[in-house]
């Protein structure tokens, strides 16, 4: 079973076309193993990006250096998944 301990989902606001391009370039870096939950489309549309724990620092630095604003949408993906599992178990009982 794949675990997502420490993974975060970042809610990113791209304010111009350059940001969109930068986010697309970021997404193409396969070693970071990023997963766009909402893809970069146009300025003003939020982008949601799931970032594995080992890539978090690199991604946050990239965003900050390029003045792309973001907030943390999900602090720890695995915590939410554990909660979901617990709820399903409870419901089954």
């Amino acid at each position: 079973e794949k675990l997502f301990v420490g993974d975060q989902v970042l809610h990113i606001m791209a304010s111009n076309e350059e940001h969109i391009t930068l986010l697309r370039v970021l997404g193409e870096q396969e070693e970071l193993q990023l997963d766009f939950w909402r893809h970069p489309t146009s300025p003003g549309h939020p982008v949601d990006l799931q970032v594995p724990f080992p890539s978090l620092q690199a991604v946050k630095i990239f965003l900050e250096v390029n003045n792309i604003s973001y907030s943390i949408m999900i602090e720890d993906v695995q915590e939410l998944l554990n909660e979901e599992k617990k709820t399903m178990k409870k419901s089954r009982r």
Partner: protein
Amino acid sequence: VERSTSTFDFASYHTLDEIYDWMDILVDNHPSLVSKIQIGQSYENRPLYVLKFSTGGPNRPAIWLDTGIHAREWITPATGIWTANKIAEEYGRDPSVTAILDSMDIFFEIVTNPDGFAFTHSNNRLWRKTRSTNTGSHCIGVDPNRNWDAGFGGSGSSSNPCSETYRGPYAHSEREVKAIVDFIRGHRKVKLVISIHSYSQMLLFPYGYKTAPVPDHQELNELAKKAVSDLAALYGTKYTYGSMVDTIYMADGTSIDWAYDNGVKYAFSFELRDTGRYGFLLPSTQIIPTATETWPALLDIMVHVLEHPY
């Protein structure tokens, strides 16, 4: 084993087996209205089931609804289950549902990508694609909503098997997609297609693969406007609406573009709750509110199609 829809927990997420068992219960409870048909098999040989709601009569015009084409979007089959139950329960009670089913059949595929869905329960909760293997690549799966023969292969999808939007080797390469294509083509009288996704709060219509507006743009736009307005009435959930390419992004090979290009004038794609909080991990406490608010919008569209035969 749950044997009654009245004891089934609609406010919880369920496994594929539980959903398939529930389908049988729904059929048992409404034998003169609901039947279950199999339209094909998935890549891993799971049955592809469709619920058929029909009050009889041969070769009636029909409505196609599907949920769960992207495996991790769990809120969509959960909403689908609630909605299918609602359709069955409201026939003979709600005048709109009754009028629709007195003239049209409804086909509802609750788990459109069962291999992916089972995989989200056993191996990777955040899996999106099908589970077919790709020759020459270690990456698995095709995005079943980039695999349709509508602008297939264009820039709004990926040719990389490792991408989440990989279009596949050729249009309709995925059994899950081909089964629907064959069914809708074979039926010949499908008048409405609604494909349900999550989670951007949008109601979209063709095109996604090109910027040109469809000839019916104005009518679809007006209908979408009414639907999202009625959806918002319950909890104030704000949806945007418009053509896919203008509202979200360019996407090639999507189901609603294929439907439109194949004669289905009314083709919509829903993006359910929520914006910027939980994404694909929407808590189960939001299943009923999501399904409940979506219902009037679905009904608006279905009634419009009933009242505007073509």
